């Protein structure tokens, strides 16, 4: 019997894709379907696009003999989540012309547009390209958008750390020119040598790969949820280097005990840019060579580490980079939140963090957030930054223009929106889920806001209104909104039902635990009511809800 490893079908597709070209061109020319060919659906992810369909209308359309309403989601590559105002204006216009209109800030500091029909993909990418924006490698089995602590007040050397995000992103880009060739009609004379990809070869990684950079004491990026987490070590306003953590990842699969969320392990310290970049590169190379390529559910770096052991991994890494990692430096995370409202940095520039519920920038009957942001962008006086908590920071505003921006924010009631949202609402996050995400088992961003309203009432009843509790919801176990490190995590199991997880901390250094399975809304509220009551009476000095729940778990719930 042959012992040959049974590769997953995606491996074959990658290998035979001719540098991520696949048959995308042919797929685009197919006039009878809004979908692209099945194999191309895997390839197109590397170009930052996901094929989706409106699941709400599947049944109705099937009756009408109409195919599913296919459209595409495009995700931008925005290392450290930064846009100049004219780029925001362009995005606003592209969203209006080619997508649903809503601009979605993701949990990884970038922007997504949804509902782009097949025939509009090219015009969309062309328009982004005119604004020097691209979507290369924001999905697929490759390094994704590199995220970085977002608030410049964090540290005077923030700019320096930001620059790392760009460098890492650049270093880990695929070498193929397929993106330019397919979407931008670049008639490049393809020299095979130019496209030779030493890192990704023709197989790319076994699975997606995420990198985050955190600047303590804020862990707003959830650094431990990433395949590689860099923790900036700063002393006396000098960047000494980075602690390197590896093997984080939150996705799991219901009913598959071999899958689990895992937080990254700190393996050492690098004291220079060169060493840090080299270490990152080689972690990817090891994962490329040793990652599981037969079962995609077990293909993230965390499973490679679990299989070979962290010690082996470190040895392999050190032998590849040719130097020893220094022992990890000490660091301290205190929180992982956004600083809403106005803050000034060390250079005197002003920053306003706008609360954006679930990252959805759009106009609704209550507030015209999207219009307001367009007006701000048109002043040309503020840059746009996005946070891993799906909020938006109007950035780098000179003192003399602060009042103009403030006036705009006030006239559109954005300040009210930001100030008056409750503590739990501002700490909450949900993924897209239904109706477009093909993985969703339950609602996410369409449902959480109304659930939060009900939880607010409960908290108010218990006199806990001001409590900062991190609540996160996903429509499936894949963990996009990082529910496994929330104090209260909801993980969708089926329509209207969620697993309730409890016990994460404020700093993002502890996974929560499954408390109750498949609860409907009524049961969720009953459980939370009991828990809040216990919390109110049983909490210890200044204890957070997550810490309280964790202590209870250890004592009673086992």
């Amino acid at each position: 019997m042959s012992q040959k490893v049974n590769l997953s079908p995606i491996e074959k597709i990658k290998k035979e894709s001719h540098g991520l070209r696949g048959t995308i061109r042919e797929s685009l020319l197919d006039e009878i379907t809004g979908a692209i060919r099945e194999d191309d659906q895997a390839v197109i992810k590397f170009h930052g696009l996901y094929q989706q369909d409106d699941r709400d209308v599947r049944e109705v359309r099937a009756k009408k003999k109409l195919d599913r309403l296919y459209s595409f989601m495009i995700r931008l590559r925005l290392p450290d989540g930064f846009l100049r105002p004219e780029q925001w204006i362009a995005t606003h216009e592209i969203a209006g012309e080619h997508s649903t209109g809503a601009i979605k800030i993701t949990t990884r500091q970038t922007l997504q547009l949804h509902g782009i029909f097949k025939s509009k993909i090219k015009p969309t990418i062309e328009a982004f390209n005119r604004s020097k924006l691209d979507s290369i490698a924001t999905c697929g089995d490759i390094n994704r958008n590199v995220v970085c602590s977002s608030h410049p007040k964090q540290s005077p050397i923030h700019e320096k750390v930001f620059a790392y995000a760009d460098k890492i992103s650049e270093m880990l880009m695929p070498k193929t020119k397929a993106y330019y060739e397919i979407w931008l009609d670049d008639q490049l004379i393809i020299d095979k040598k130019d496209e030779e990809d030493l890192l990704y070869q023709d197989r790319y990684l076994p699975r997606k790969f995420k990198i985050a950079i955190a600047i303590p004491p804020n862990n707003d990026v959830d650094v431990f949820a990433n395949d590689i987490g860099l923790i900036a070590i700063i002393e006396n306003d000098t960047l000494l280097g980075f602690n390197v953590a590896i093997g984080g990842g939150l996705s799991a699969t219901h009913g598959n005990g071999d899958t689990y969320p895992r937080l990254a392990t700190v393996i050492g310290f690098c004291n220079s840019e060169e060493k840090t970049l080299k270490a990152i590169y080689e972690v990817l190379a090891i994962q490329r060579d040793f990652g599981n390529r037969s079962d995609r559910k077990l293909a993230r770096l965390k499973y490679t580490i679990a299989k070979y052991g962290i010690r082996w991994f470190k040895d392999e890494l050190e032998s590849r980079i040719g130097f020893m990692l220094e022992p990890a430096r000490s660091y301290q995370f205190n929180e992982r939140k956004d600083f809403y409202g106005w803050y000034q940095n060390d250079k005197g520039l002003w920053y306003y963090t706008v609360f954006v519920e679930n990252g959805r920038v759009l106009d609704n009957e209550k507030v015209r957030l999207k219009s307001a942001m367009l007006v701000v962008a048109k002043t040309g006086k503020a840059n746009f930054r996005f946070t891993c908590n799906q909020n938006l920071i109007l950035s780098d505003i000179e003192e003399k223009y602060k009042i103009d921006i403030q006036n705009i924010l006030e006239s559109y009631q954005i300040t009210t929106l930001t100030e008056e949202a409750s503590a739990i609402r501002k700490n909450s996050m949900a993924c897209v889920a239904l109706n477009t995400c093909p993985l969703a088992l339950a609602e996410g961003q369409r449902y959480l806001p109304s659930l939060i309203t009900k939880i607010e009432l409960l908290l108010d009843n218990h006199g806990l209104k001001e409590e900062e509790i991190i609540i996160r919801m996903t429509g499936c176990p894949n963990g996009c909104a990082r529910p496994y490190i929330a104090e209260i995590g909801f993980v969708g199991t089926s329509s209207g039902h969620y697993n309730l997880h409890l016990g994460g901390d404020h700093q993002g250094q502890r996974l929560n635990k499954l408390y109750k399975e498949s609860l409907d809304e009524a049961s969720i509220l009953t459980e939370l009511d009991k828990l809040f009551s216990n919390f109110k009476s049983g909490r210890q000095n200044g204890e957070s809800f997550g810490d309280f729940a964790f202590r209870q778990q250890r004592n009673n719930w086992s």
Partner: protein
Amino acid sequence: MLAETKLKTLQQLVENLTKEELIWINGYLSGIVTTSSSDQLTKPVVGKITIAFGTETGNAKKLAADFASKAKKAGINVKLSSLDQYRLVDLQKEEYFLALVSTHGDGEPPAAAKNFYQYIHENALQLNNLHYSVLALGDTSYPLFCKTGEDIDNKLQSYGARRVAPLQKCDTDFEADANAWFENVLKTLSVGTLANGTPATGQIKTRSKKNHTGTILTKINLNDTISSKETYHIEIAASDLTYEPGDSIGIIPENPLEIVQSVLQLMNLDESKRFSYKEQAFTLFDLLKKKLNIVYLPERVVKKYADIVQQEIPPTRIDLFNLLKIYPLKDVAQFEEIIGILEPITPRLYSISSSLLVHPDEVHVTVARNCFTLNAEVHHGLCSDYLMNLPENSSFEFYIHKNLQFKLPSADKDIIMIGPGTGVAPFRAFIEERDATGASGRNWLFFGDQHFTCDFLYQTEIQNHVLTGALTKVNTAFSRDQPEKIYVQDKMREQAEELYEWLSAGAYIYLCGSKDPMSVDVENSLLEIVQNVGHKTKEQAQSFFDQLVEEGRYSKDVY
């Protein structure tokens, strides 16, 4: 080759025939030739199967399409259908039924299979004639692996159906198992250990213009909700049907009840009063409801009315109610005179969009809701609204209208079908028919409408036909999806080279849809293509085109 007496008889026969009759005989003979020659091949015992799939990810669909084309190659006639489009009541009529179904979430059927699943679980069925097999797709990492397939398999068996092959469960790497299952099924179907099904007789019965009573089985608006259009796919059941693709049905619509009632009220007349019209006696209600055209009277009728009431009436189209209201009669007795000048309701024709071979005892039509503006008011067509408003299971009268000018050529000929909007209707029948008879000629469809997402009539059927190879090529033009308008003729010009190639190789070309401007533009484009690609002068192109018409290779059904 023929003996002299036979030859003579043939020559005598041919001498007195019209061209249409000759064309018909030509088709008839080639039909005989195809049928008899295929009889000599060793055909599988089972001639016809249904392959139905319930898919969430598309895997079951892909397999189903693959198997359908394999079965076809083996000489078996296949009906391929998604379970959510499968008419559930048909299950009791099936003889050979293969179900490919995945399991989703916690042992649940995929959305597309939900109705089917419920149907077989909630109804006690008699499936003694059914032979079936189930291919279940699933994922062993879920506890209720292949639950849906398992349930369907058990349920069908409990209703007396017999398995042609045991239930096959497949994990995520399903290809090998699935193929083995299908090989097994095919083998059983060809060996003939099974009872013979009654073969469907495709015999053409004598033609007659007789009235049928049809029952509405299904009525679906094919346009999605966001569309500005309404196009109804209507399935009608009737017995003793005889028709061929290309034929139409004729329907005499009834007048809307509210209009009839308002006329009765205005005239203060008893609806049961009997009047004679064209030497037959009717109640006034029946006359107004079913016999007389009282909406949008033609100018000639308005003129006659003016003569009777002796008033000046400007020449316009107006309905009876307004006429009576604005230009009243001298007395009610005059109404009898008015009835005499009214014209009967004329039948409307709708191209048949089904093949009798695929849908026995059924006829399908594709009806666009007709909207037009008259005197600055929006009106709806009488007949399209009449049909649209007929509830499911209600009955109405219709007849078959033969269209000998719009017939499929012999099986080996290629055809090009140009049918934007409801013009696609006869081509649905063409494709179904050619698919069912296994015609070897290639089939190319041009379709167009306003928007791809909401106006692509019969999209999933067309996709399935492409998957199984029943359609060789499809091009679509959606006029309002981009700043510049794109129509079918633009797509034809885009495909000029290949189109000319098909025509030069003897393809037949068919055009159906609106007369003006569509058919004019399409014909001009055709001439242009022939001229440019064939390097001909304008005159040469015209004579090329004329020859097409002469050879019966260009047919149109435009309105």
